[in-house]
């Protein structure tokens, strides 16, 4: 195994302590509940017996280290506890709602990358031009937009005023039936089922929330692309390439852009962090039946097991995404895992 293979393996192994840390923090959060955690977990309608039962399942009568071991073993079995509001295991709830969130997030990210990366490149190659000014404005305005507010404004304009958007309630208008579940992604499932009408309806529902999220993530990506591209363009190797008479296209894309991509990919990690958070807000605004709105409902109902299960699974998802980003990085950067990087 070469240096890179070893470095890749090391990167994968590095995720383990992080996951452990995440679990520890989750555990602390569940035990930091004010008053008696058992009372909180049992909910408002709890009886003495149900509180006692919760106390036993959580091992709250045992010392903390023992509780942690119990917590770990429950996690290992995929047991995130019971949701009070739905009465089902939290894991089942999350699993059934995750595709909705993922579909929204991925479409939004794709949308925002398609706009922001070219915008950042254009701005960097024409510093001071109108594209550059536009980029600066978008970047500063974009990070200033509260996602939930953008969503509300978009609904007002496209649903109430123009009437071209469907009512902002969920993934599919009630006149349509959910496509047969294969992946849980409505766009894919309806396409698989060959149901063009449902596909289009799902897309219509998706556009506004996806745009809301995309607007939010546009700014950091465009900003990073522009900065990375500028710094790549002022690097010495660009001067070498120009002195060798290479064409503008080759210099911009073959040399500058590939190098600029590295910091942009790294930024994606941060963007995922923002987007998973913003997701919660957007889902609430658009009544999107994903895990974000599930968490908000759980919060309102003081459904602690559901909330903490949500926090933990989002963290694990994020760790996984970061791992994927780093592995993607290792593919583009030959220096990965060597002393030079």
């Amino acid at each position, binding site marked *: 195994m070469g240096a890179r293979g070893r470095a890749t393996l090391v990167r994968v192994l590095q995720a383990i302590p992080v996951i452990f840390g995440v679990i520890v923090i989750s555990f602390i959060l569940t035990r930091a509940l004010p008053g008696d955690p058992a009372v909180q977990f049992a909910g408002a309608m709890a009886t003495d017996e149900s509180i006692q039962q919760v106390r036993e399942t959580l091992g709250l009568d045992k010392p903390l280290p023992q509780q942690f071991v119990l917590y770990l073993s429950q996690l290992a079995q995929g047991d995130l506890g019971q949701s009070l509001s739905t009465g089902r295991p939290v894991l089942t709830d999350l699993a059934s709602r995750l595709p909705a969130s993922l579909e929204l997030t991925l479409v939004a990210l794709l949308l925002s990358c398609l706009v922001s990366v070219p915008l950042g490149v254009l701005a960097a190659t024409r510093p001071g031009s109108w594209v550059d000014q536009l980029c600066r404005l978008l970047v500063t305005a974009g990070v200033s937009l509260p996602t939930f507010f953008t969503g509300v404004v978009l609904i007002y304009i496209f649903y109430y005023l123009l009437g071209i958007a469907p009512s902002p309630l969920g993934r599919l208008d009630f006149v349509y039936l959910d496509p047969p579940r294969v992946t849980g992604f409505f766009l894919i499932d309806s396409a698989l089922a060959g149901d063009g009408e449902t596909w289009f309806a799902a897309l219509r529902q998706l556009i506004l929330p996806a745009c809301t999220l995309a607007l939010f993530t546009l700014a950091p990506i465009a900003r990073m692309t522009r900065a990375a591209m500028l710094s790549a363009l002022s690097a010495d190797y660009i001067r*070498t390439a120009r*002195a*060798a*008479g290479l064409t503008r296209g080759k210099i911009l894309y073959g040399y500058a852009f590939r*190098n600029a991509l590295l910091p942009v990919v790294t930024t994606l990690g941060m963007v995922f962090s923002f987007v998973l958070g913003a997701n919660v807000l957007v889902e609430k605004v658009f009544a999107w039946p994903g895990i974000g709105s599930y968490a908000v409902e759980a919060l309102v109902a003081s459904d602690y097991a559901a909330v903490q299960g949500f926090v933990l699974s989002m963290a694990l998802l994020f760790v996984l995404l970061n791992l994927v980003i780093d592995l993607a990085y290792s593919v583009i950067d030959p*220096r990965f895992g060597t*002393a030079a990087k």
Partner: protein
Amino acid sequence: MLSIKDLQVAFKTRKGEVNAVRGVSFELARGERLGIVGESGSGKSVTSYALMRILDAGGRIKAGDAVYSGIDLRNASESAMKDLRGREISMIFQNPRAALNPIRKVGHQIEDVLRRHARASRQDARDKAIAALEAVRINDAAARYEAYPFELSGGMCQRVVCAIALACDPKLLIMDEPTTGLDITTQKAVMDLVDDLVKARGMSSILITHDLGLASEYCDRIVVMKDGQIVEQGDPKALFTRPQHPYTRKLVDATPRRGATIRALLPAEERRPELPHAVKDTPILEVKDLVKTYQGKSGPVHAVKGVSFTIHEGQSVGLVGESGCGKSTTSSMLVRLLDPSSGQILYRGTDLATIPSDGFARHPLRPKIQMVFQDATDSLNPRHSARQSIAEPLLRMTPLRGALLAARVEELARLTGLPAHLLDRFPHQLSGGQKARVGIARAIAPDPDFLILDEPTAALDVSIQAVVLNLLADLRATLGMSYLFVSHDLNVVRLLCDHVIVMKSGEIIEAGPAEDVMDAPSHPYTRALLAAAPQAPAA
């Protein structure tokens, strides 16, 4: 072949337009090797960028003509220039590692140029790229083709840059400080290689450098530039023996060379007799079997492998070696910024190695051992004025306060030749030489008797280097200090030092009186170092 007439280049800056090149004219014949020599800010690099029309966005050719083989370089279309670059005129840059695309295989970078200028097709590009690598004498070229720049040494990277520049057989090669950042032996190897290729292919070349010695060794004719203008041109020998312009004379004088004394570096009218410094028999510092081993990622790194030497009172010892030889690690240990792994550092009989570097700041011996740092810019706190920087050690280590403190700071400024009105300036408002003076004033403030000079002139232009070296010699005589002068440049070291130590790979390979080491080196490595240093023709 190349004719430049009254070239003027201007840059837009915040403070308005700055003229970087102000009316430069010269001719270059086929097969001629021209050197453009000047100190920083002389406009020598800008001249070459203007020729290639690769000036920065704010820069433009204001006036003048540049004609290459009948082509008007100033007015040629951009696409014509693109065809010219790399095929007719090529360029080699300083800092070779940065000059290569870090994430593209070097072979592909050569192919890019070959393909661009239709010197290779998709099928034979690889073979031709390997041939180009072989042409710059890279061993095992086929394997190197697959390498990324980070996998190659600095000298190897510069060879690749050469291969790119020479791949399409240009007629003119422009070299912009091609050896900056390379060790002296590598520098020689690269320059010899390029010179051979230029001669063998009958190319013309322009070497842009600050080093008059280097230019005189590799050029047929030299142009000396100052403040955007040419002050003198001629063949190297004549330039050295009969410099016409006062600036050329100053530059020639300031270039360290064999047989010259430290005073001879200064312009004739400023040469005062050298003050004698007495070397006593009592040792001030004895280093015994000093070892430093780091814990690296792939096992222990032996930076210093047991060095021993003695410095006597009043003596100046030179510590010479190329990068990575352990000289900086050694000096850090001596100045007590770094704890040795084992060994003794006896300062007047006290073993400093037993005092941890963490607590040494408040040790009574702290004022006695001080250091002048390599980069004057980096070693001054950007938020402190010169006065604050010089006063800092006095405040921490002496009871001087108020008027007494101010008087002492001004005395130090006088000693180091820093005009008193500059004391309230911040580092960015001072020139390189002035910053060097502040650094020296700060080092001698607490009245040390042992001073480590860590390449104190490496970042300075030669004329300022001459002044600073002389200042250090004067201070040594008036204040009676002992020096450990750390440097990569034997020619500079011999000017100031009585005794020379040569290090390689963490060990001392040769030590002895300066004259002996310089004139009759016993170790082959020392001989290689001496041979690699460019030699100016004797004046």
